[in-house]
């Protein structure tokens, strides 16, 4: 059975601590380069701050983690890539980026309406000794290629291998949990199979509080957000959503 992996992120629980960003960087061998700015750095998972634009007691703020939305339909990055370096995996629904095939034209970054793609402006480098702690399941990306969230594909690999070793065809869902989901101290990020109606994440995605970003584009993201606050839910509407800003962790 083909899965449709996705997320439901409960924005009412997100405190903006940035643990997901750090976990993502550690899991996926993302270098922390001193010369990188908020605009040029690599943040496959990025916590942004949003506000309702009010003043004084009227003001409301919230945090929203932005990652690749894994669009199911009309996936913009796939359409523009001249290298066929991006594809939507039929078996998992994961939008897969192949940095080794990327020529660095950055069309996909322009096409992505969620700004969830990042360019390697520099050679990857780590403080001395830290390269020993790199994840062996994730290849380091070279300078000049685009990268993004692959839903911690190394963990899916490990889960598949474990299942095969045990003589099973299907992975145990408990074995495949992305690093950000695992690291979130308030359990705001939920990960699961949206194609499985019994999966709690699939059920949460149908909640009246659930919404997706830029739904009018019909990209059908597999990353859902959830909030009881109407002003936060307004993020799903074109041009009327709350203002968003980058947050540095």
């Amino acid at each position, binding site marked *: 059975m083909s899965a449709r992996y996705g997320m439901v992120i409960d924005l009412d629980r997100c405190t903006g601590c940035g643990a997901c960003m750090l976990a993502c960087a550690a899991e996926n061998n993302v270098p922390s380069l001193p010369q990188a700015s908020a605009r040029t750095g690599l943040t496959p998972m990025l916590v942004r701050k949003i506000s309702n634009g009010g003043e004084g007691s009227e003001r409301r703020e919230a945090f929203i983690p932005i990652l690749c939305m894994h669009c199911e339909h009309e996936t913009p990055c796939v359409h523009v890539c001249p290298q066929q370096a991006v594809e939507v995996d039929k078996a998992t629904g994961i939008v897969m980026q*192949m940095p080794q095939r990327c020529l660095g034209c950055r069309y996909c970054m322009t096409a992505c309406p969620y700004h969830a793609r990042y360019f390697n402006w520099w050679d990857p480098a780590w403080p001395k000794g830290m390269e020993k702690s790199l994840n062996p399941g994730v290849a380091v990306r070279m300078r000049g290629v685009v990268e993004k969230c692959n839903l911690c594909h190394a963990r899916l690999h490990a889960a598949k291998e474990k299942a095969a070793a045990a003589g099973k065809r299907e992975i145990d869902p408990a074995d495949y949990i992305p690093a950000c989901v695992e690291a979130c101290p308030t359990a705001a990020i939920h990960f699961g199979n949206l194609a499985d109606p019994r999966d709690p994440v699939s059920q949460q995605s149908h909640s009246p509080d659930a919404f997706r970003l830029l739904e009018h584009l019909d990209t059908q993201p597999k990353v859902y957000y959830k909030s009881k606050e109407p002003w936060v839910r307004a993020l799903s509407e074109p041009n009327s959503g709350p203002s968003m800003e980058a947050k540095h962790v």
Partner: protein
Amino acid sequence: MSRNSLVFGFGLAVALLAGWVAFPRALYSKRPQPVEFLHKTHAEKSGITDCAQCHAFRDDGEFAGLPANDTCAGCHSDHIGTTATEATLVDHYIKSGQETPWLVYSRQPANVWFSHAIHVRRAGLACADCHGSYGDSDQVRVYEVNRISGYSRDIWGHSMSRLDRAAGDGMKMSDCEDCHRRRGIEVGCLGCHQ
């Protein structure tokens, strides 16, 4: 035969020799293995017939690849023979606690993800299907490394033209794809890349 066709024939021969003989020799540099290990000796003298006795799976399904010195020390904790190789293994590596720096012929580039568990346990492939018949080797093979890419020659294979490849010679992406296509198994890019 006219003079022109002689000149053409000579030029063609020189070009082919340069391409098929001189270039591969220049492209690959040879490195000796740290210990002259012979699969055949182990199979015949100590009765090891199953690859998995030394090349084992870990509990989580990951393939351990080449055995660590602990496995060798199961028999070679002290000198078994009088050969220079035996002395190197025991004195230089096992007794000093330093892992033997084997050169791995089938080491894939860092962006390749390959699961032995899926191929061996689930698909039922034999080791020799991809690796060739290592078990019969009666002399240690020379490890050749591509001077440009740093990859082992086994990845491209020993046939430069790749037209007369023996089974198990060559571990390029196209070799994986050939087998997958024959078996009708489709995986996306990240099915095998990481």
